[in-house]
């Protein structure tokens, strides 16, 4: 009896042990990922593109980061990184971080609070060492200073309470840089404290990273190395993934129509179809005629049939929303019933009729059509919606001509305001109103392309930023978002959906659903042998 019991117990134990063993993390191996093009540099703070942040995020640590195993970034999914703990003072304007001790930079030098101070001093332009570009200056509008209280404690001093500061600091775009390394070196040979060390970048060829054997997080990373192969041709790289040359695709590189092909040709591939928090939108030059006329701007914005865009461009997969990514993926976007009340989001036929009336009031009509140019980048994901827009504008007496701008000149053209209407894509680093509003709609922000500026809205931006009750903040954010659509600040067309695919052997990967920029630490990923 005892023997039988023992045998039964052993059998049960074995039955459990097998799956446990099968799913135990296995260390070692090189993960092969393809990249869509040579990154402009390795310095995350100087770039605003997933081309840099996806490969290089694994070189660095933040003070805090988004839990890499939670798909939806939010204040609740923030976990310690270089900071072990953090606390707000009573006035909610001082955020103090206790820092991990014993952490070393990849060159062997110790990490201290001075590095934290130095990083944010540089972002605020207070250091002698200057970065060539500082695309996220607007994120720190409320930051007064950062102090290094001791080697293991740093404090962020804010001008007003800003609970969402943590959300910004948790982004892949917010790594801590070493004080002793120049910005130039950070562009070409970045040094971090992260799980992987940068080895080399060969333009048009590859980027290589190896495991940081001295990584402070015990048992991490699992991988020995990450090899990125740069493949410019999308057809080639997708075929190469199908042929099992790569473990992982570039983030959101598989478009909705392509996903069908990939699934057919590589049925075992695990593909994550997610919202990327990249929106398609219009930028309208409100300083130049005819769009200095508010009626014409509004008519154009409400005449767009957004569902038609979504259906044509993504087989209906892209999402309808305002400035903020809509739920359920987004944490702050207007729900459908609120969105339906926003200007331009009602019934398309009724909206077109309203827009026609506005155009007539502005002096245009079937016999006096308005000729405009719609400018966009010479990239398919920009051109395709622009062509649909041209067609839709005909209904409101606008004869638009497409002006395709060479991709590399796009932002220069926009900065010169050398356009009438531009069809643009905007990527959002963090799904938080503090990022979206201050980056894209605040007076004086470098990335507020249209120059939209309303003091009343600025006050609302600041008010929502200071709110600690997140539910009340959400309601205010919806109101702001709706008003931004009504003001034609940057009319939204859709929020894009894309897929990231991995081979089934890739374990521990979570693809974020509300940002393409925050989930690439790679320290928890392992390859099933």
């Amino acid at each position, binding site marked *: 009896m005892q023997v039988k019991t023992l045998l039964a117990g052993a059998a049960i134990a074995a039955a459990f042990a097998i799956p446990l063993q099968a799913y135990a993390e296995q260390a070692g191996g090189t993960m092969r990922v393809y990249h869509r093009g040579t990154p402009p540099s390795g310095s995350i703070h100087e770039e605003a593109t997933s081309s840099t942040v996806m490969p290089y995020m694994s070189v660095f640590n933040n003070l805090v980061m988004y839990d890499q195993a939670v798909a939806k970034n939010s204040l609740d999914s923030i976990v310690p990184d270089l900071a072990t703990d953090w606390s707000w003072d009573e006035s909610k304007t001082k955020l103090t971080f206790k820092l991990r001790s014993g952490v070393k930079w990849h060159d062997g030098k110790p990490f201290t609070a001075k590095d934290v101070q130095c990083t944010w001093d540089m972002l605020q332009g207070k250091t002698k060492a200057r970065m060539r570009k500082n695309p996220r200056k607007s994120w720190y509008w409320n930051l007064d200073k950062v102090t290094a209280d001791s080697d293991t404690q740093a404090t962020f001093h804010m001008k007003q309470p800003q609970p969402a500061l943590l959300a910004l600091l948790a982004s892949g775009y917010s790594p801590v840089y070493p004080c002793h390394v120049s910005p130039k070196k950070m562009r070409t040979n970045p040094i971090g404290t992260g799980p992987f060390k940068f080895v080399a970048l060969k333009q*048009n060829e590859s980027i290589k990273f190896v495991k940081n054997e001295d990584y402070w997080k015990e048992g991490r990373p699992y991988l020995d190395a990450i090899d990125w192969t740069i493949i*410019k041709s999308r057809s080639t790289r997708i075929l190469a993934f199908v042929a099992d040359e790569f473990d992982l695709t570039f983030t959101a590189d598989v478009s909705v129509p392509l996903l069908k092909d990939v699934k057919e040709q590589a049925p075992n591939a695990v593909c994550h179809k997610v919202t990327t928090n990249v929106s398609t939108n219009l930028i309208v030059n409100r300083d130049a005629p005819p769009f200095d006329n508010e009626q014409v701007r509004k008519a154009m914005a409400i005449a767009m049939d957004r569902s038609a865009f979504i259906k044509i461009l993504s087989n209906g997969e892209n999402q309808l929303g305002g400035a903020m990514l809509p739920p359920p993926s987004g944490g702050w976007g207007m729900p459908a019933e609120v969105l339906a009340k926003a200007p331009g989001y009602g019934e398309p036929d009724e909206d077109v009729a309203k827009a026609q009336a506005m155009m007539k009031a502005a002096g245009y009509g079937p016999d006096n059509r308005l000729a405009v140019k719609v400018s966009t980048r010479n990239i398919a994901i920009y051109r395709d919606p622009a062509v649909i827009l041209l067609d839709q504008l005909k209904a409101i007496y606008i004869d638009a001509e497409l002006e395709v701008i060479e991709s590399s000149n796009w932002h220069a053209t926009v900065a010169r305001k050398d356009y009438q209407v531009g069809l643009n894509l905007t990527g959002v680093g963090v799904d938080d109103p503090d990022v979206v509003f201050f980056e894209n709609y605040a007076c004086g922000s470098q990335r507020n392309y249209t120059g939209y500026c309303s003091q009343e809205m600025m006050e609302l931006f600041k008010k929502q930023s200071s709110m600690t009750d997140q539910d009340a903040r959400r309601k205010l954010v919806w109101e702001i978002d709706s008003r931004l659509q009504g003001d034609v600040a940057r009319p939204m067309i859709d929020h894009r959906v894309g897929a990231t695919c991995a081979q089934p052997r890739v374990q521990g990967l979570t693809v974020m659903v509300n940002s393409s920029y925050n989930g690439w630490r790679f320290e928890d990923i392992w390859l099933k042998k």
Partner: protein
Amino acid sequence: MVAYIVRRTLLMAVTLIGMSIIIFALLRLVPGNIADILFDSAGFVDPAEKAALEEELGLSDSIPVQYWNWIVGLAQGDLGFSYVSELPAIDEIAPRIPITAKLAALALFFSVLFGLPLGVISAVKQNTWLDYFLRVVSLSGLSLPSFWLALLILMAFVTWFGTIPIYTDPPDNLWDELLLYSIPAAAVGFRSSALIMRLTRSSMLEVMRQDYIRTAKAKGASDRSVNYGHALANAVLPVVTIIGIEAAFLIGGLIVTETVFNIPGVARFLVEAIQWRDYPIVQNLVMFIGVIVVLTNFLVDLLYVSLDPRIKYE
């Protein structure tokens, strides 16, 4: 002959100087510069930061000063720094040249290996089913867009063999290298061999109607001796010209092949450098390609003398 070589050398120098001015001027005429493009990846352009960057890269100097600095540097062997990688331009360019040179040499080898004999066969067997077949094959070689053919090859490999013949890592040995380059070289060589085949055929047909061929046949010379000893030897001159042109073209003209097969050679690098307005890379690379083209033409001209005793350079 010596006087001819000296004269041609001087002419080559003048050509290269002219080319340097043209490429330098054209690059500056294209809208935007590296500062615009670097800011593009940051999603904005800050006029003050842009001006500082232009100053740092020497782009705020006058155009003649920029040209002079480049030429003086070039004469001293200093090619400057890549604006993108911030590494010496020579370190970026030099490793890519052998890659493209090997691919081009293999492509040229394939094209001559197939183009020349098939052209002779097609001419000798004029108006037979074999001639028709070869002409159809050569026409398809000329008319198939190379990107399409290359993608078709990749798709065929993935579908039938579950693998893809693209460059992902540097090959470990000569055999791997040969295997890696042979598929893209065949894709490029198909077009070149079609061109060589058609030219050989038409040139052969013209020669085979000459009196001396008829005389050779009348004297009882064998078909092989007539076709290869007399006809081909005289028909090969225009073919050599086209092979020379193809050789020069292949050094800078493999853009599509390098892109589709992901080969990190100079052609793809040049296109990317143009897109980035990476002046030091573009200027020096175009000059290098120019030198290759000029030298190849010169060598082809010299080759004429040994191939045709009637040609003499005074």
